[in-house]
């Protein structure tokens, strides 16, 4: 049966709801054959509409006294709308009952500005429909972890799922990466933003195996997002502060396969070189203890550039690449036996082939391999600049640019830069602060286990990521 009134009424209510500001209330008072039903609509902190209703039958309103003046007050009281409010809609069900006619008259007199709708059927179903179909008044966003930077604490951010105005049924796809997440599993938290602080809309979680996921999010109704492409999710009891507190204060790694690249400067005084090599040995052993077979190790040695064509320099040596820890330690033994190289003229006394070493690492690591990498440089001299500059250190003969190379490593996903420098941090050349962006230790004072933990090579307690990570590989 066609219901032209129903469509008109839906539009009118949807419009009134759309106009509803955050702090306001919308009241619908339905005068039906058997009494008065009041609906109170408002929006919550996330802009999501909610409705409550209550009803009073004619006998409730009239009491035992019968239909008198006090009945009028009872009718107005059950409508509970303040007399001046413009946000009142009166709904009159078609009925021949004189009590209904009387009640409607009282209400109209009390709310002269109110719209009056006519309806054949009870209005409740229509209101529920309008609420369920309400377009979003805030963008819905998924909370994700940003852990791509080479250094520091992972950060939280949000990725938009549904923009303002989205209606139920909308779908969107997100590529996510999940890491080991601890007891509560990975939380899929949807937030809205009002000002600088996010407001939690919903959190659902599940134990999700680490890996990449193509997730589809569907807006079921305002306030309800369904995720598919994941194990079944269930509501998470944690509040926002608890979720944020679960975020680790160090980068990823440690939990899964990790590639440790050790680069050691092998020029300078013999005992200094021996000391650097022994720190590298401790680091490899320490990481191997923590990660076992999950650890792959590469070992590079680099020295100083020669500035005389008749004295060819020792180029960067890759002593081991992606081998097991044992093999790498053997290669390290050979370096220890060899001792310091490239002493005296024509080798530059104040800089080393750090930039050449970085070039080799950047090229060998490639961008495609997603295995988390930790690059640990052990040395003291600064790199050669790409071209003559105020430092007056002679430029790299190959014109490698250490700044660009470090930036390239920093942009590689889950790559962490650590360093052990001959000088304490406050005296180290500025290049060492970048080459040890995640952790810079002093050769004489380094706590190798602590450094390994800082670099995510051994976790004092497993690192957990309470939220998914955005997968930016595509």
């Amino acid at each position: 049966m066609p219901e032209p009134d129903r469509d008109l009424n839906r539009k009118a209510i949807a419009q009134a709801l759309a106009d509803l500001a955050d702090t306001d209330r919308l009241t619908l008072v339905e005068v039906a054959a058997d009494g008065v039903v009041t609906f109170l609509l408002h929006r919550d902190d996330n802009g999501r509409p909610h409705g409550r209703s209550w009803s009073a039958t004619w006998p409730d309103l009239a009491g035992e006294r019968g239909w008198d003046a006090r009945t009028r007050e009872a009718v107005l009281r059950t409508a509970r709308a303040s007399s001046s409010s413009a946000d009142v809609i009166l709904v009159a069900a078609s009925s021949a009952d004189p009590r209904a006619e009387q009640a409607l008259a009282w209400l109209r007199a009390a709310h002269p500005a109110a719209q009056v709708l006519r309806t054949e059927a009870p209005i409740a179903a229509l209101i529920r429909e309008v609420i369920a179909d309400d377009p979003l008044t805030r963008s819905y966003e998924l909370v994700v972890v940003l852990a791509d930077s080479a250094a520091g604490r992972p950060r939280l951010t949000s990725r938009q799922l549904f923009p303002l105005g989205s209606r139920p049924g909308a779908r969107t796809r997100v590529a996510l990466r999940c890491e080991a997440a601890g007891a509560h599993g990975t939380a899929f938290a949807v937030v809205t933003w009002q000002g600088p602080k996010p407001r939690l809309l919903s959190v659902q979680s599940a134990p999700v195996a680490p890996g990449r996921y193509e997730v589809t999010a569907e807006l079921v109704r305002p306030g309800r997002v369904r995720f598919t492409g994941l194990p079944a999710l269930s509501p998470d009891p944690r509040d926002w502060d608890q979720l944020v507190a679960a975020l680790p204060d160090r980068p990823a790694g440690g939990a899964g396969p990790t590639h440790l690249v050790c680069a050691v400067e092998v020029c300078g005084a013999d005992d200094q070189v021996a000391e650097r090599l022994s720190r590298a040995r401790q680091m490899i052993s320490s990481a191997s203890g923590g990660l076992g077979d999950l650890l792959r190790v590469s070992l590079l040695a680099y020295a100083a550039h020669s500035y005389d064509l008749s004295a060819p320099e020792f180029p960067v040596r890759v002593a081991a690449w992606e081998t097991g820890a044992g093999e790498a330690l053997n290669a390290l033994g050979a370096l220890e036996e060899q001792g310091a190289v490239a002493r005296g003229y024509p080798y530059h006394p104040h800089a080393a082939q750090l930039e050449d070493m970085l070039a080799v690492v950047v090229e060998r690591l490639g961008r495609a391999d997603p295995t988390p990498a930790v690059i640990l440089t052990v040395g003291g001299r600064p790199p050669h600049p790409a071209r003559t500059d105020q430092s007056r250190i002679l430029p790299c003969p190959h014109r490698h640019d250490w700044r660009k190379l470090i930036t390239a490593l920093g942009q590689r996903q889950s790559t962490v830069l650590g360093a052990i420098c001959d000088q304490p941090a406050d005296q180290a050349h500025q290049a060492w602060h970048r080459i040890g962006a995640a952790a810079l230790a002093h050769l004489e004072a380094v706590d190798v286990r602590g450094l390994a933990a800082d670099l995510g090579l051994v976790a004092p307690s497993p690192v957990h990521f309470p939220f998914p990570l955005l997968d930016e590989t595509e």
Partner: protein
Amino acid sequence: MQPDPSRERPDHNIAMWGAPGSGKTTLLAALFIALTKRDDDWKIIGSDPASSDYLIEKTNALLRGKLFPEASMALERYHWTLIGPAVRKPGFWGRKAKPGPPARIGIGMIDAPGGLFGTGRRPAGGPSAPDGSGDPRRQELLDNLEQSRGIVFLYDPIREFTFGDAFDHMHAPLTRLAERMLAAGEFADGKLPHHIAVCVTKFDDPRVLETAERRRLLSVDIDDPYRLPRVTSEDARELFHELCQVSASGNADMVLKSLDQFFHPDRIRFFATSSIGFYVDRRTKRFDWDDFQNMVPGEADEDSRIRGRLHPINVVEPMLWLGQRLAAIRPATGVS
């Protein structure tokens, strides 16, 4: 007296003067090398065997070992003679010019240690009289300057960045020299009779080259196959002025003022000098802005070395300018 021209008393003397470390020894060795490479007839010869040995030793150091020559404590003892081509004197009444005896210019070298005349902020192990009076080296410096009519003054901009003592080094000796000249009636036009070549040394240092580049003072000789940047003598004064702005003491521009005070403008010329020149890659044979330093620093206990071939810049030019200017003057007589 022997017939050997180098042993004869030179027509004129040039005093090479600059703070210790300003590059005198290196300049002298580079001068010898540069003159040897040139086609014209100028040469430099020791005035006695010890001076010849010294020159040969320093030059070899620069050429073979590529080490900077070591500083010498007793430089004043050595003397060299710069011998030019035979001078052609114009004949009377348009008759053909006849070759005359070659020009001979004596070169003496003087360290000007701080404390000798200056404020004594940098003691150089000399006697401690506040103005250094009584130091025999002070007398030697003044005698040398007095007997010379040409001065090569080495101004080391790198030292000036760090110590800023160039003014201390030059002002007092010039004042004393002026006193002597006045007494000898040689202050004719209100200025010293000397010609002075002011050499801004270590032009190859990035800090100096970049200053010149910033001020757009660089040019390249069209027929220089290496395309080495240079500063012409006309622009060298501005470079000097510009470098004075970054002096550590801030009174380097007083150096310029005092030069103008004591020397006639026609008798001052500036040179942007480098004894070692820029590094030029053997294969490309071209100056490269990305890589031009010709010096490899030594380990803590070693001296710096020279990296590639020497390409001395404005090393011969100041000498020849002085040589030509002095040759045009009647040989000094009666100074004995």
